[in-house]
């Protein structure tokens, strides 16, 4: 349209002048009043400051970051050399943070969608947002006699301790419904809770002391980049690194020995090895007698039910390899096993983890530097959770919070009765991209009176929301972070001002509380004001100060600190099980409907109709729906792909890069093929992530099949993400 027809000045202004006179502007012609601008304060010379930040993502490494800020603008981020775990480095995602903070796609203002899913948005002020939310909450309380119709779905988008204030916000309005459990690691937690009493792992920097390391169903080269340095260091010091994984992952490519086990049969391999160890008297009877309960029952189970031939047939691994593995593991001391989260996302995931734990127990490899059965640790999470622990208002109705299973969210929201669920609050979460059975989740969203989502970008979840609240990135708000793997504690300072009208989740809680109390005094107990730094300070407990050897949290401004004790799991031999011992036989497991012993439970099998197992691991350039939408990541890779074995590809006449349709009875996706020998003929791999302008979501094909365990420690069973059976065809 840019036609350059230049209307001559005279004619144009003559036309305009005629009308100007009729409408006056009030006051003199030049009554200029500032609205967005203001006189510049003394032009101070350019200042460059360094701030301590921490990456709050759902990742083993939780890196300590040093941000460079010039005149209030974040210029670059580097790893904080003070941490001996991340050693001054980040990962590809961490290095792209400037592109996230200043992305043009960031949501800038609170907005209201007129017609959920219509794409018609209206900008509203924070006050208008709070008013509508508060009125809705109070209406629901009146209508249903409690705030239970309000449901929170919050999980791993931001693991900064302050963000537990979101749970606190919901508690402070009364009993509410909570999407409980975790899609990530629940079966493994329950398994280790039955075996050890809870999950504790060695300090990952201790891996260098292992002489034999089995990485079982984990891919640290993609999901815990900094651990790989210590794995490599261990290798250089003579440690044999074995990787057991259905997929020849990036980690497997670095292994001394890679075993391509049939997916979901890990328990059979572990029990086969245990049987060999038993038969050849390679077990540590002394350790078992002193520290374990149920060894005899376990050994008799092995003798009567487990044979090496069966294990070989079950796992697809030649018997002599199982024997070699068992012998090497049992005789090389100390021997370490790292149990991955992918490995337990099966219908028999929990039992498989217990079988692997049992290997570590019978060989006495527990409580030792360089040994153990590493899964995760929450030992460094002993905060006060001040922001989370709020009291419920007296008249809020309902007996207690209601839990629904986060891993079957859509169906459970739809089926919730007396009272039904009428309002959703989504924060640090993306159900529309991360949950199974996306169609059911969408149906649940459609049935709501009000959906509020706090997010940074226009995700599919925000598209299905009524109100979107812009939130701050880690660089715009104070916080504190710990990891579920390493033992470091990092402060997160506010490096820059919050962009646009974005707010921290705790600020949102405070201001919503103010509005609720304005509309109905006493309807919300959340404090209505407070400096965010002070909130951070209040999270620190005596235990944390003792554990990390600091007197005051401000010391963390000088850099991250490492826990001073408890770096080797179970070194004191005091197991937190009912018996105080390692329980091969767990009455607690029986109580939750599982076998008391780590017996083998049959894995889910493919069907003729859907012969291929689709494994959906994490993608290396994203954490779930985060990072892959940034422009730097898109420049490295901007295309999902399905990894197919050459034999399978040949059968379907698929060549490299051909477009392939992968489908089962609940959904389908289409994406380019990558022909590779790194998957086995019975498996295809599709990495789960979210590309901002592609209709790709592998979860269209994933059913909400529960994993076997998870209820005890996390409140709900996990999801058997990798028991997803599909068929493929060339497009």
């Amino acid at each position, binding site marked *: 349209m840019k036609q350059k027809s230049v209307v001559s000045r005279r004619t144009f202004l003559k036309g305009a002048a005629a009308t100007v006179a009729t409408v006056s502007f009030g006051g003199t012609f030049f009554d200029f009043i500032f609205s967005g601008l203001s006189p510049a304060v003394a032009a101070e010379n350019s200042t460059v400051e360094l701030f301590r930040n921490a990456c709050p993502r759902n990742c083993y490494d939780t890196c300590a970051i040093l941000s460079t800020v010039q005149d209030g603008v974040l210029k670059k981020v580097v*790893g904080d050399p003070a941490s001996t775990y991340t050693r001054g*480095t*980040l990962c590809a995602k*961490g290095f792209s943070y400037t592109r996230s903070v200043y992305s043009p796609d960031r949501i800038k203002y609170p907005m209201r969608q007129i017609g959920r899913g219509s794409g018609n948005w209206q900008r509203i002020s924070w006050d208008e947002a709070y008013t509508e939310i508060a009125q809705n909450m109070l209406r629901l309380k009146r209508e249903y006699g409690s705030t239970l119709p309000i449901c929170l779905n919050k999980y791993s988008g931001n693991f900064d301790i302050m963000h537990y204030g979101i749970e606190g916000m919901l508690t402070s309005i009364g009993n509410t419904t909570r999407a409980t459990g975790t899609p990530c690691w629940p079966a493994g937690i329950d398994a280790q809770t039955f075996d050890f009493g809870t999950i504790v792992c060695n300090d990952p920097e201790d891996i260098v002391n292992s002489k034999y390391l089995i990485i079982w169903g984990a891919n640290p080269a993609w999901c815990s980049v900094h651990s790989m*340095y210590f794995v490599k260091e261990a290798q250089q010091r003579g440690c044999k690194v074995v990787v057991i994984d259905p997929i*020849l992952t990036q980690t497997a490519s670095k292994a001394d020995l*890679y075993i*391509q086990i049939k997916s979901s049969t890990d328990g059979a391999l572990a029990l086969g090895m245990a049987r060999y160890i038993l038969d050849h008297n390679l077990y540590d009877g002394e350790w078992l007698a002193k520290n374990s309960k149920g060894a005899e029952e376990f050994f008799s189970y092995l003798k009567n039910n487990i044979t090496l031939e069966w294990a070989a047939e079950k796992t697809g691994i030649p018997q002599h390899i199982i024997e070699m593995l068992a012998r090497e593991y049992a005789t090389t001391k100390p021997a370490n096993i790292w149990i991955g989260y992918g490995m337990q996302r099966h219908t028999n995931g929990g039992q498989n983890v217990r079988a692997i734990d049992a290997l570590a127990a019978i060989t006495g490899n527990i409580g030792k530097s360089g040994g153990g059965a590493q899964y995760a640790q929450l030992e460094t999470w002993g905060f006060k959770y001040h922001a989370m622990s709020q009291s419920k208002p007296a008249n809020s109705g309902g007996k207690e919070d209601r839990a629904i299973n986060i891993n079957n969210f859509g169906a459970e929201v739809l089926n919730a009765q007396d009272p039904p669920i009428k309002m959703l609050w989504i924060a640090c979460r993306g159900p529309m991209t991360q949950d199974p059975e996306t169609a059911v989740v969408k149906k649940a969203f459609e049935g709501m009176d009000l959906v509020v989502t706090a997010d940074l970008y226009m995700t599919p979840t925000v598209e299905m929301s009524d109100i979107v609240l812009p939130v701050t990135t880690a660089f715009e708000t104070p916080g504190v972070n710990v990891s579920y793997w390493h033992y470091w504690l990092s402060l997160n300072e506010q490096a820059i001002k919050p962009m646009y009208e974005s707010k921290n989740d705790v600020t949102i809680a405070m201001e919503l509380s103010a509005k609720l109390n304005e509309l109905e005094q006493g309807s919300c107990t959340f404090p209505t004001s407070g400096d965010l730094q002070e909130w951070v300070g209040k999270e620190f407990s005596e235990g944390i100060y003792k554990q990390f050897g600091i007197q005051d949290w401000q010391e963390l401004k000088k850099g991250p600190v490492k826990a001073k004790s408890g770096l080797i799991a179970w070194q004191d031999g005091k197991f937190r099980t009912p018996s105080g011992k390692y329980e091969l036989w767990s009455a607690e497991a029986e109580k939750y409907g599982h076998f008391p012993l780590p017996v083998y439970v049959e894995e889910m099998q493919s069907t003729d109709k859907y012969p291929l197992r689709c494994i959906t691991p994490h993608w290396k350039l994203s954490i779930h729906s985060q990072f892959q939408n940034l422009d730097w990541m898109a420049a*490295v890779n901007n295309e999902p792909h399905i990894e197919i074995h050459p034999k399978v590809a040949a059968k379907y006449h698929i060549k490299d890069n051909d477009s392939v349709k992968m489908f089962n009875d609940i959904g389908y996706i289409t994406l380019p093929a990558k022909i590779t020998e790194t998957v*086995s003929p019975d498996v295809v791999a599709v990495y789960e992530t979210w590309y901002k302008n592609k209709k790709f979501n592998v979860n269209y094909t994933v059913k909400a099949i529960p994993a076997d365990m998870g209820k005890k420690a996390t409140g709900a069973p996990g999801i058997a993400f990798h028991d997803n059976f599909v068929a493929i065809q060339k497009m």
Partner: protein
Amino acid sequence: MAKKIGFLVNSDRCIGCHACELACKNEYQQEPEIRWRKVYPLKEDSFGGFAREFASLACNHCEDPACLKACPVIAYTKREDGIVMHSKERCIGCKNCMLACPYKVPEFNQKTKKVEKCHMCAARQDRGEKPACVVGCPMEAITIINVNDTIAGAERSLPGFPNAAITNPTTRFIKPVVGRQVRRDA
């Protein structure tokens, strides 16, 4: 003889995580399509068995750089320590160096209408710091070496790397070692 420096790319340590590539972009905050350092996937079967292997490559700061020879405005100069520098002021955007370089290193910046490439963080190294990619690599898979030193296992090429005889690059490689693999290909 002056110390000649070059990159040592240890593909045995490299896990293809692209941190080096993004550390470089983070240091210089470039446009997305400008990638001074790229992590190339190597063919699966190049080292026996099948494995996900990578080589992280930026400018190879060659002994006799084709870019320097081809450039009509003498925008390229090779420093005493071997770093091949590109002068933004002199470049007229004729892209002749992009044709001449066997490793596709020089890139055309649409905004400045000039070519640019990795300068091995010359300014950082002059300040005694290591290049951003070297510091940013979690596996310490990229290091700066004296090209004249003999380093165990260091080779001048990798399968798929264009013939080193053309421009005599200073980059040295360490081949990845693929362990024993028990695979189910039946």
